[in-house]
């Protein structure tokens, strides 16, 4: 079985700060991590490899520094890693990204037929959740998003059964391989690799690919291939409402009543809403 897992290196959003003077995002010193949603997909792929054997190829598109993410994925147990990097890819939106990644997956498919592609449900920096479905559409693959559990994989009949979270509840779906799958957060926990995994991760040569390696139509990648236009980036205004501290020493009913009273006085709408 050959599984391709697409990952993205993102800035750790928990540690991003706004420059106090210029009001721009400070990326300097912000650690880069694997998009957290990708890890649920990677772990699921590794579990399938544990069960069925075969190969898990991690694929990322990004600057050369994204190598760190691939090494990390290898240390969890992935067997192969592809770094798709080229200045021509800079500025790619989700449409162009899914095109470039699909081109790489097609090339991987030539090496060894791909049974499944795993993607993160969404990224924490772009938050679009479009790249995975974009790949599925381009590859003409079955698309299984928001998967909470892989119930069964039958390699003979090439069928896969999954539990998919939807608005109303859980759908149990049976579909065909090859399929593109995005896993729901919390569906599993990333493993702690063995010492052998650590050695392998440090030593495995990366496959360094660029646009010439796999992309046929250059006009479909980078800024040129990206119809999305970011017109403005701004820092949202903080909700400038001051919190009021109510001292509740002793905690008497009178004090509670006074606090509620104050709430209604400050927010008259609250009283009418409650009454209505």
């Amino acid at each position, binding site marked *: 079985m050959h599984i391709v897992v697409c990952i993205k290196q993102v800035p750790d959003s928990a540690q991003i700060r706004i420059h106090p003077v210029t009001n721009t995002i400070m990326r300097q*010193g912000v*650690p880069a991590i694997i998009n957290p949603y990708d890890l649920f997909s990677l772990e699921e792929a590794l579990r399938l490899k544990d069960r069925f054997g075969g190969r898990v190829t991690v694929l990322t598109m990004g600057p050369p520094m994204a190598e760190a993410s691939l090494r990390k994925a290898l*240390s969890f147990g992935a067997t192969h890693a592809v770094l798709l990097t080229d200045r021509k890819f800079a500025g790619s939106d989700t449409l162009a990204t899914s095109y470039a990644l699909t081109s790489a997956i097609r090339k991987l498919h030539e090496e060894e037929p791909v049974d499944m592609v795993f993607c993160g449900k969404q990224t924490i920096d772009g938050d679009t959740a479009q790249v995975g479905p974009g790949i599925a559409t381009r590859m003409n693959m079955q698309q299984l998003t928001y998967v909470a559990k892989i119930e069964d994989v039958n390699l003979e009949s090439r069928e896969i059964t999954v539990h998919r979270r939807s608005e109303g509840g859980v759908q149990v779906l049976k579909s065909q391989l090859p399929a593109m799958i995005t896993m729901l957060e919390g569906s599993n926990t990333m493993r702690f690799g063995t*010492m052998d995994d650590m050695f392998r991760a440090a030593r495995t040569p990366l496959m360094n690919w660029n646009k010439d390696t796999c992309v046929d139509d250059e006009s479909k990648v980078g800024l040129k291939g990206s119809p999305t236009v970011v017109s403005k980036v701004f820092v949202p205004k903080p909700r400038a409402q001051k919190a009021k501290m109510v001292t509740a020493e002793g905690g008497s009913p009178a004090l509670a009543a006074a606090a509620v009273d104050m709430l209604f006085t400050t927010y008259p709408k609250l009283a009418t809403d409650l009454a209505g």
Partner: protein
Amino acid sequence: MVEKFDAIVVGAGPSGNSAAYTLAKAGLKVLQIERGEYSGSKNVQGAIMYADALEKIIPDFREDAPLERHVIEQRIWLLGDDSYIGTNYRSDSFNSEKPNRYTIIRSQFDRWFNEKVREAGALVICETTVTELLRDANGKVYGVRTDRVNGEVHADVVIMADGVNALLARRADFQKELPPENVALAVKEIHFIDPALIEQRFQVKDDEGVVIEIMGKVTGGMVGTAFLYTNKESLTIGIGCLISDFKEKGITPYKLLEDLKNHPVIKPLIEGGEVKEYAGHLIPEGGYKAVPQCYGDGWMVVGDAAHLNNAAHREGSNLAMTSGRFAAETVIELKKLGKAPVASNLALYKKKLDDSFVLKDLKKYRNLPGIMHMSPQFFGAYPDLLNGAAHDLFTVDGVDKKTKENKILKSFVKRRSVFGLMGDAFKLARAFR
């Protein structure tokens, strides 16, 4: 199959990186194991980096190392309640082509250093904790065990660069538990601030920097010091005191740091900044007498793990780097001679330490830690008295100078007594001789 290396280096701070780099550069098969996510992710220091020690390992480090500012001015301040008295030394010759000291941010600097280790050919594995040394029936160390499955790795020699707690050496009974009077706890903050404000407040330009070492009331009568360093676009401010004193006084480290930040002579220097990082760490302060056995059959300890820190001159990372280099050079030299890394041969490492500034300096100040520990007056009473004296002298109020001098003298005698003053002078001379 268990993998075997020429050497395993445990830890990726200044001493571990120096050892691994030197070994790999000489073509040895080296494994370096770091418990943090990357080299520097867990490492804390003020931080001043001394060029000389690094130059001897990576001569052209200035080309790409992440350095903040080179130090052109050193200030030593004794703080009173609302004042300081002190000395400044500033020299334009510190602006030479190869400056002597730099402020650094360790998480960036160590990461850079570790990248050099990898480039030199060492295998670096992070996020992996070495849990114990592997020893044969005769006690000779032949490898380490890590916290990962199949975690055993073998080597001819293990260099422990695992920091002040020296957990590995202690677990192997090579070292005893650190007594609280031999360890300081330091806390620090990095305040992000507009570089223009740094230039204006410290009268510096470009990459010039200022270092302020601080003693006095801010340590609450405990044995300790504080510091304020200028980085490119941030200031580092911190304070540390002996653990035994913290325990005795019941003062919290963050309270000290808050008091320091709010001191009237410090506050205007850091105003307008935003706290970017908060960190705390232990510092080995026991000096020469606390340096443990630092080699044995198949093992050596380097850096903080070997208690190599010069508290009197606030030097540590240079001792760490140099000891790491010495340990590596010892392994390389023995290998060339075809000698086994047993204790009798690894004694060469200790000799290198003895013959260099590392142990010479520590030996010079061997009495300092004990004397300071017994003499809190140097950290409380004297800064106070000196500030008071300066205040009286520089206040023009119609009182004649002779009377002022007598008043100052009386204040000293009253606080310390004639014998106390003489004793203190003697102690100081003995400690620094």
